């Protein structure tokens, strides 16, 4: 028997949300040459029962939502987390004033999923 839950709207489902990270906001503008900031995004939203394929869920997450629907107090919903990320490259000065181009993986959230 499932507990009464507020209706889940499409906009509240787990999905990537826009987040722009500005390096000057974190005080790194003195040594990072480029980019000055980038669209990093983040994941937010609900993972309601029943989980659909669009929510990039695992078998475990599907079962967890089932258990959650039976016992909302004892078992939480799965988490909305990044499931596909992409890299960016950053150009910066190091402590010896050399220019460095470094490739960083997992910097941009492309897809979110319920896990």
């Amino acid at each position, binding site marked *: 028997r499932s507990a009464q839950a507020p209706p889940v709207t499409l906009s509240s489902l787990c999905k990537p949300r826009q987040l722009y990270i500005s390096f000057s906001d*974190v005080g*790194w503008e*003195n*040594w990072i*040459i*480029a*980019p000055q900031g980038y669209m990093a995004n983040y994941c937010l939203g609900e993972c309601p029962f029943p989980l659909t394929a669009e929510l990039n869920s695992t078998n475990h997450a599907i079962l967890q939502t089932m258990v959650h629907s039976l016992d909302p107090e004892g078992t939480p919903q799965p988490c909305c987390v990044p499931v*596909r990320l*992409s*890299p*960016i*490259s950053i*150009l*910066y*000065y*190091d*402590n*010896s*004033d*050399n*220019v*460095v*181009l*470094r*490739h*960083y*993986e997992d910097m*941009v959230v*492309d897809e979110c999923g319920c896990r």
Partner: protein
Amino acid sequence: SAALATQLSLQESLQESLLLKSLGLSTKPSPKTHAPVPSVLWRIFQRRKTLPALSKDLGDACRVEEFNVPGNIIRVFADQGHFIHHGQPPRLLCLQKRLYFNLSVLEEGERLTMAQLEIKFSHNSYPSPSPSQGQGLELRLYRSSRLPLRGTPAPERGQKLLVERSFVQLHKSLVFDLSGVAKDWRTHSRNLGLILEIAWSGGDGASALGSGGCTSISSFLDTSLLVVTLSQQQCGASRRRR
């Protein structure tokens, strides 16, 4: 409230240092000079920026496609060596310079996969009086085997010749592969730098110095060392995940 502010500031700096560590940096860099960005790095940066997300995902992030070598960090080291000035210039020698690149910033977990020396001139030039007379310039690059002594700049003894090349035309940019030497500097021997010599060939000393044989190298700008490394910590982890 002062104690709370101090605690918050400490927490912030701890978080920042953790974040910098995850980016592979031990401390927040504080450059003293903002040197111009080498064009090769701009080019690679711009190309990567314009790649669609899907291509980035499929491509090997731990490979530098432009040079076809493994790596995720590209550095351009500025030359810190000085010109070697002789009291009396040896015959035919147009330029003699010590080259020194401080590779000590490379971390232990980084594997050096490529080192490329670039010698830049402001424009292409032809040695005068005439290349057709069998005259030209010779470039020699030696590996220095001892520290330079203050006040006694030359001559060096026991230098190992790395490169010897003759030129009828000096191009704007000359590039030499120094991967082996740079790897050796990191593993077996101390980095004592290099000696660059450009000399006039095929004529006599008078034509080199008197009639301007050496003038073609007056456009000499500078030298830099481009080094590609692979951070085992970051690239090892991504390979295991895949």
